[in-house]
Protein backbone atom coordinates (compact mmCIF):
# COMPACT_ATOMS: atom_id res chain seq x y z
CA UNK A 1 0.00 0.00 0.00
CA UNK A 2 1.49 3.38 -0.92
CA UNK A 3 1.33 6.65 0.97
CA UNK A 4 -2.06 7.46 -0.48
CA UNK A 5 -3.58 4.31 0.85
CA UNK A 6 -3.89 2.67 -2.55
CA UNK A 7 -2.40 -0.75 -3.03
CA UNK A 8 -0.35 -1.73 -6.05
CA UNK A 9 -1.66 -4.93 -7.57
CA UNK A 10 0.12 -7.60 -9.55
CA UNK A 11 -1.80 -6.38 -12.58
CA UNK A 12 -0.36 -2.89 -12.09
CA UNK A 13 3.14 -4.29 -12.01
CA UNK A 14 2.59 -6.49 -15.05
CA UNK A 15 1.09 -3.51 -16.84
CA UNK A 16 4.16 -1.43 -16.11
CA UNK A 17 6.57 -4.17 -17.16
CA UNK A 18 4.72 -4.50 -20.47
CA UNK A 19 5.09 -0.76 -21.06
CA UNK A 20 8.82 -1.24 -21.25
CA UNK A 21 8.64 -4.06 -23.80
CA UNK A 22 8.76 -2.82 -27.41
CA UNK A 23 5.66 -3.78 -29.45
CA UNK A 24 4.09 -5.70 -26.55
CA UNK A 25 3.23 -2.44 -24.80
CA UNK A 26 1.41 -1.23 -27.88
CA UNK A 27 -0.40 -4.53 -28.34
CA UNK A 28 -1.53 -4.29 -24.73
CA UNK A 29 -2.99 -0.85 -25.42
CA UNK A 30 -4.82 -2.15 -28.49
CA UNK A 31 -6.24 -5.04 -26.47
CA UNK A 32 -7.36 -2.79 -23.63
CA UNK A 33 -8.80 -0.25 -26.03
CA UNK A 34 -10.92 -2.88 -27.78
CA UNK A 35 -11.96 -4.38 -24.46
CA UNK A 36 -13.01 -1.01 -23.08
CA UNK A 37 -14.42 0.34 -26.33
CA UNK A 38 -11.77 3.05 -26.29
CA UNK A 39 -10.88 3.98 -29.86
CA UNK A 40 -8.26 6.48 -28.76
CA UNK A 41 -6.35 3.85 -26.81
CA UNK A 42 -6.54 1.46 -29.76
CA UNK A 43 -5.11 4.14 -32.02
CA UNK A 44 -2.40 5.00 -29.54
CA UNK A 45 -1.46 1.35 -29.21
CA UNK A 46 -1.23 1.00 -32.97
CA UNK A 47 0.93 4.10 -33.07
CA UNK A 48 3.28 2.66 -30.45
CA UNK A 49 3.60 -0.60 -32.36
CA UNK A 50 4.45 1.20 -35.60
CA UNK A 51 6.91 3.42 -33.74
CA UNK A 52 8.59 0.45 -32.09
CA UNK A 53 8.81 -1.49 -35.35
CA UNK A 54 10.49 1.38 -37.13
CA UNK A 55 12.74 2.40 -34.27
CA UNK A 56 13.47 -1.00 -32.76
CA UNK A 57 11.86 0.35 -29.64
CA UNK A 58 14.29 3.14 -29.04
CA UNK A 59 14.59 5.95 -31.58
CA UNK A 60 12.53 9.05 -30.93
CA UNK A 61 11.57 7.62 -27.57
CA UNK A 62 13.27 9.55 -24.85
CA UNK A 63 14.15 7.04 -22.22
CA UNK A 64 16.02 6.83 -19.06
CA UNK A 65 15.68 10.27 -17.52
CA UNK A 66 13.17 8.86 -15.10
CA UNK A 67 14.23 5.30 -14.57
CA UNK A 68 11.98 4.01 -11.89
CA UNK A 69 8.47 4.16 -10.62
CA UNK A 70 5.73 1.60 -10.69
CA UNK A 71 2.66 2.70 -12.50
CA UNK A 72 -0.43 2.58 -10.40
CA UNK A 73 -2.69 3.69 -13.20
CA UNK A 74 -5.82 5.56 -12.33
CA UNK A 75 -5.20 5.08 -8.64
CA UNK A 76 -2.27 7.44 -8.50
CA UNK A 77 -4.01 9.82 -10.86
CA UNK A 78 -7.04 9.79 -8.60
CA UNK A 79 -4.79 10.49 -5.64
CA UNK A 80 -3.21 13.45 -7.39
CA UNK A 81 -6.45 14.70 -8.84
CA UNK A 82 -7.88 14.77 -5.36
CA UNK A 83 -5.34 17.45 -4.53
CA UNK A 84 -5.67 19.31 -7.80
CA UNK A 85 -2.89 19.49 -10.31
CA UNK A 86 -1.34 22.41 -12.09
CA UNK A 87 0.44 21.55 -15.29
CA UNK A 88 2.75 24.41 -16.06
CA UNK A 89 3.26 25.40 -19.63
CA UNK A 90 6.27 25.83 -21.77
CA UNK A 91 5.39 29.44 -22.44
CA UNK A 92 4.98 31.37 -19.31
CA UNK A 93 4.34 32.27 -15.77
CA UNK A 94 0.57 32.26 -15.69
CA UNK A 95 -1.50 29.17 -15.08
CA UNK A 96 -5.20 29.18 -15.95
CA UNK A 97 -7.92 26.63 -15.24
CA UNK A 98 -8.56 24.02 -17.88
CA UNK A 99 -10.98 25.11 -20.57
CA UNK A 100 -12.49 22.53 -22.88
CA UNK A 101 -11.94 23.67 -26.45
CA UNK A 102 -13.27 20.68 -28.28
CA UNK A 103 -14.83 17.32 -27.50
CA UNK A 104 -13.13 14.74 -29.66
CA UNK A 105 -15.74 12.66 -31.47
CA UNK A 106 -15.55 8.87 -31.34
CA UNK A 107 -13.53 7.49 -34.23
CA UNK A 108 -11.45 10.63 -34.76
CA UNK A 109 -8.13 10.12 -36.48
CA UNK A 110 -5.03 10.85 -34.43
CA UNK A 111 -3.64 12.93 -37.30
CA UNK A 112 -6.72 15.16 -37.17
CA UNK A 113 -6.43 15.59 -33.41
CA UNK A 114 -2.74 16.42 -33.71
CA UNK A 115 -3.47 18.97 -36.40
CA UNK A 116 -6.19 20.54 -34.26
CA UNK A 117 -4.06 20.84 -31.16
CA UNK A 118 -1.09 22.18 -33.10
CA UNK A 119 -3.29 24.74 -34.83
CA UNK A 120 -4.83 25.92 -31.59
CA UNK A 121 -1.41 26.26 -29.99
CA UNK A 122 -0.08 28.23 -32.95
CA UNK A 123 -3.06 30.58 -32.98
CA UNK A 124 -3.11 31.36 -29.27
CA UNK A 125 0.44 30.72 -28.03
CA UNK A 126 -1.11 28.85 -25.10
CA UNK A 127 -0.49 25.35 -23.96
CA UNK A 128 -3.02 22.75 -25.04
CA UNK A 129 -3.48 19.17 -23.99
CA UNK A 130 -5.41 16.11 -25.08
CA UNK A 131 -7.13 14.51 -22.12
CA UNK A 132 -9.80 12.08 -21.10
CA UNK A 133 -12.33 13.95 -19.00
CA UNK A 134 -13.92 12.59 -15.86
CA UNK A 135 -17.02 11.63 -17.85
CA UNK A 136 -14.93 9.51 -20.21
CA UNK A 137 -15.00 11.89 -23.16
CA UNK A 138 -11.76 12.79 -24.88
CA UNK A 139 -11.16 16.48 -25.31
CA UNK A 140 -8.70 19.13 -26.34
CA UNK A 141 -8.26 21.56 -23.48
CA UNK A 142 -6.37 24.79 -23.11
CA UNK A 143 -4.86 26.79 -20.29
CA UNK A 144 -3.11 30.09 -20.04
CA UNK A 145 0.31 31.11 -21.18
CA UNK A 146 1.57 29.65 -17.90
CA UNK A 147 -0.12 26.30 -18.12
CA UNK A 148 -3.25 24.38 -17.33
CA UNK A 149 -4.74 23.89 -13.90
CA UNK A 150 -6.73 20.69 -13.43
CA UNK A 151 -9.15 20.54 -10.54
CA UNK A 152 -10.12 17.53 -8.53
CA UNK A 153 -11.75 14.91 -10.73
CA UNK A 154 -11.66 16.92 -13.94
CA UNK A 155 -9.54 14.53 -15.96
CA UNK A 156 -8.68 10.86 -15.93
CA UNK A 157 -5.81 10.75 -18.42
CA UNK A 158 -3.37 13.21 -19.96
CA UNK A 159 -2.49 11.82 -23.39
CA UNK A 160 -0.14 14.62 -24.37
CA UNK A 161 0.49 18.33 -24.47
CA UNK A 162 2.10 20.99 -26.60
CA UNK A 163 5.14 23.21 -26.34
CA UNK A 164 4.39 26.29 -28.45
CA UNK A 165 8.03 26.51 -29.56
CA UNK A 166 10.37 23.71 -30.57
CA UNK A 167 11.59 23.45 -26.96
CA UNK A 168 12.09 19.73 -26.37
CA UNK A 169 10.60 17.62 -23.58
CA UNK A 170 11.99 18.59 -20.19
CA UNK A 171 12.72 16.91 -16.90
CA UNK A 172 9.44 18.41 -15.75
CA UNK A 173 7.65 16.45 -18.45
CA UNK A 174 9.07 13.22 -17.03
CA UNK A 175 8.20 14.24 -13.50
CA UNK A 176 4.65 14.96 -14.62
CA UNK A 177 4.34 11.40 -15.89
CA UNK A 178 5.43 10.03 -12.56
CA UNK A 179 3.22 12.34 -10.55
CA UNK A 180 0.19 11.65 -12.69
CA UNK A 181 0.72 7.91 -12.42
CA UNK A 182 1.07 7.50 -16.18
CA UNK A 183 3.71 5.68 -18.13
CA UNK A 184 3.88 7.89 -21.21
CA UNK A 185 2.64 10.90 -23.09
CA UNK A 186 3.25 12.73 -26.32
CA UNK A 187 4.93 16.13 -26.40
CA UNK A 188 4.37 18.23 -29.50
CA UNK A 189 7.09 20.85 -29.77
CA UNK A 190 7.12 23.00 -32.85
CA UNK A 191 6.93 20.63 -35.78
CA UNK A 192 8.31 17.74 -33.76
CA UNK A 193 6.58 14.97 -31.85
CA UNK A 194 8.34 13.15 -29.03
CA UNK A 195 6.98 10.26 -27.07
CA UNK A 196 8.31 10.22 -23.54
CA UNK A 197 7.89 7.47 -21.00
CA UNK A 198 9.39 6.10 -17.88
Amino acid at each position, binding site marked *: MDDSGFSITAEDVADTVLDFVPIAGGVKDIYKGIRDGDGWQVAMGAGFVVLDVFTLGSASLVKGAVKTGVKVGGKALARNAARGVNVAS*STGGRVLPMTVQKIIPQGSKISDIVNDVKGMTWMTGNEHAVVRLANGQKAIVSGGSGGISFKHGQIRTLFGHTHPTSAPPSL*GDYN*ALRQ*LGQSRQYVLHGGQVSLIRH
Partner: protein
Amino acid sequence: MAIHFANNTNENQDLYSFPAFVPNMKDVLYEFNDQTLDLGYIKKHKYGEKALQLAEKAINASSPANRICSLSGDFVKNPQDYIFMGLLTSDEEEELYFYNFLTLDRNNLDKWIERKHFVRVAEEFIASDKWKDLGEFKYLQDLIDQVS
Protein backbone atom coordinates in the same frame (compact mmCIF):
# COMPACT_ATOMS: atom_id res chain seq x y z
CA MET B 1 5.80 20.34 -18.14
CA ALA B 2 6.50 21.59 -14.69
CA ILE B 3 3.98 20.36 -12.24
CA HIS B 4 2.92 21.20 -8.73
CA PHE B 5 0.04 20.23 -6.55
CA ALA B 6 -2.39 22.92 -5.56
CA ASN B 7 -2.81 21.71 -2.02
CA ASN B 8 -3.28 23.65 1.16
CA THR B 9 0.41 24.17 1.75
CA ASN B 10 1.10 25.97 -1.50
CA GLU B 11 -2.21 27.75 -2.08
CA ASN B 12 -0.78 30.94 -0.65
CA GLN B 13 2.67 30.54 -2.12
CA ASP B 14 3.80 32.96 -4.76
CA LEU B 15 4.82 30.59 -7.51
CA TYR B 16 6.30 31.16 -10.91
CA SER B 17 6.03 28.69 -13.75
CA PHE B 18 9.06 28.91 -15.97
CA PRO B 19 8.58 28.01 -19.60
CA ALA B 20 10.67 25.33 -21.32
CA PHE B 21 13.16 28.01 -22.27
CA VAL B 22 16.55 26.37 -21.54
CA PRO B 23 17.13 23.48 -23.96
CA ASN B 24 20.81 23.06 -23.02
CA MET B 25 21.33 20.87 -19.95
CA LYS B 26 24.78 22.40 -19.47
CA ASP B 27 23.45 25.94 -19.14
CA VAL B 28 23.56 27.31 -15.59
CA LEU B 29 19.86 28.19 -15.89
CA TYR B 30 18.77 24.67 -16.77
CA GLU B 31 17.47 23.99 -13.28
CA PHE B 32 14.76 26.58 -13.93
CA ASN B 33 13.66 25.02 -17.19
CA ASP B 34 9.95 24.13 -17.21
CA GLN B 35 9.75 24.25 -13.43
CA THR B 36 7.24 25.79 -11.06
CA LEU B 37 9.15 27.35 -8.19
CA ASP B 38 8.55 29.55 -5.20
CA LEU B 39 9.32 33.18 -6.04
CA GLY B 40 11.14 33.62 -2.74
CA TYR B 41 13.49 30.82 -3.66
CA ILE B 42 14.00 32.26 -7.12
CA LYS B 43 14.80 35.73 -5.78
CA LYS B 44 17.43 34.32 -3.43
CA HIS B 45 19.02 32.14 -6.08
CA LYS B 46 22.29 33.29 -7.62
CA TYR B 47 20.81 33.08 -11.11
CA GLY B 48 17.17 33.63 -10.17
CA GLU B 49 16.80 37.19 -11.42
CA LYS B 50 18.57 36.37 -14.64
CA ALA B 51 16.35 33.33 -15.13
CA LEU B 52 13.23 35.46 -14.66
CA GLN B 53 14.44 38.09 -17.11
CA LEU B 54 15.37 35.59 -19.80
CA ALA B 55 12.18 33.59 -19.27
CA GLU B 56 10.11 36.73 -19.79
CA LYS B 57 12.14 37.52 -22.90
CA ALA B 58 11.50 34.03 -24.21
CA ILE B 59 7.77 34.37 -23.54
CA ASN B 60 7.53 37.72 -25.27
CA ALA B 61 9.72 36.83 -28.21
CA SER B 62 7.71 33.70 -28.99
CA SER B 63 4.25 35.15 -28.47
CA PRO B 64 1.99 35.10 -31.54
CA ALA B 65 2.12 38.88 -31.86
CA ASN B 66 5.90 38.88 -32.03
CA ARG B 67 6.44 36.27 -34.70
CA ILE B 68 8.18 38.85 -36.85
CA CYS B 69 11.08 37.87 -39.06
CA SER B 70 14.27 39.62 -37.96
CA LEU B 71 15.39 39.81 -41.60
CA SER B 72 12.34 41.18 -43.37
CA GLY B 73 10.31 42.70 -40.55
CA ASP B 74 7.29 40.82 -41.84
CA PHE B 75 4.94 38.66 -39.82
CA VAL B 76 5.56 34.92 -40.12
CA LYS B 77 2.15 33.58 -41.03
CA ASN B 78 2.89 29.95 -41.74
CA PRO B 79 4.01 27.72 -38.85
CA GLN B 80 6.08 25.68 -41.31
CA ASP B 81 8.16 28.80 -42.04
CA TYR B 82 8.65 29.81 -38.41
CA ILE B 83 12.14 29.39 -36.97
CA PHE B 84 12.59 30.53 -33.38
CA MET B 85 16.04 30.28 -31.84
CA GLY B 86 15.06 30.35 -28.17
CA LEU B 87 17.66 30.74 -25.44
CA LEU B 88 20.81 29.24 -26.92
CA THR B 89 23.04 30.33 -24.05
CA SER B 90 22.69 32.55 -21.00
CA ASP B 91 26.41 33.34 -21.05
CA GLU B 92 26.91 36.85 -22.43
CA GLU B 93 30.55 36.04 -23.15
CA GLU B 94 29.58 33.49 -25.77
CA GLU B 95 29.15 34.55 -29.40
CA LEU B 96 26.10 32.35 -29.55
CA TYR B 97 24.42 34.68 -27.05
CA PHE B 98 23.75 37.24 -29.77
CA TYR B 99 21.52 34.78 -31.61
CA ASN B 100 19.22 34.25 -28.65
CA PHE B 101 15.51 34.67 -29.42
CA LEU B 102 16.07 35.30 -33.09
CA THR B 103 12.95 34.86 -35.20
CA LEU B 104 13.35 33.93 -38.84
CA ASP B 105 11.09 33.21 -41.77
CA ARG B 106 12.41 30.17 -43.59
CA ASN B 107 11.71 31.89 -46.91
CA ASN B 108 14.16 34.66 -46.05
CA LEU B 109 17.15 32.55 -45.08
CA ASP B 110 18.95 33.38 -48.32
CA LYS B 111 19.02 37.01 -47.23
CA TRP B 112 20.67 36.23 -43.91
CA ILE B 113 24.26 37.38 -44.26
CA GLU B 114 25.24 35.95 -40.86
CA ARG B 115 23.92 32.52 -41.75
CA LYS B 116 27.28 30.80 -42.22
CA HIS B 117 28.71 32.56 -39.21
CA PHE B 118 25.86 31.34 -37.02
CA VAL B 119 26.34 27.79 -38.24
CA ARG B 120 30.07 27.96 -37.49
CA VAL B 121 29.55 29.44 -34.03
CA ALA B 122 26.85 26.90 -33.18
CA GLU B 123 28.90 23.98 -34.44
CA GLU B 124 31.89 25.16 -32.42
CA PHE B 125 29.69 25.44 -29.35
CA ILE B 126 28.65 21.81 -29.73
CA ALA B 127 32.18 20.68 -30.55
CA SER B 128 33.45 22.40 -27.40
CA ASP B 129 31.19 20.12 -25.37
CA LYS B 130 29.15 23.05 -24.07
CA TRP B 131 25.82 21.59 -25.15
CA LYS B 132 23.86 18.61 -23.95
CA ASP B 133 20.35 17.56 -24.90
CA LEU B 134 18.08 15.68 -22.51
CA GLY B 135 16.65 13.31 -25.08
CA GLU B 136 17.23 12.24 -28.61
CA PHE B 137 15.97 15.47 -30.14
CA LYS B 138 19.04 17.61 -30.78
CA TYR B 139 17.80 21.16 -30.39
CA LEU B 140 20.83 23.16 -31.51
CA GLN B 141 21.79 20.69 -34.22
CA ASP B 142 18.21 20.89 -35.49
CA LEU B 143 18.50 24.67 -35.73
CA ILE B 144 21.79 24.32 -37.62
CA ASP B 145 20.15 21.88 -40.00
CA GLN B 146 17.18 24.15 -40.51
CA VAL B 147 19.21 27.18 -41.52
CA SER B 148 21.94 25.35 -43.46
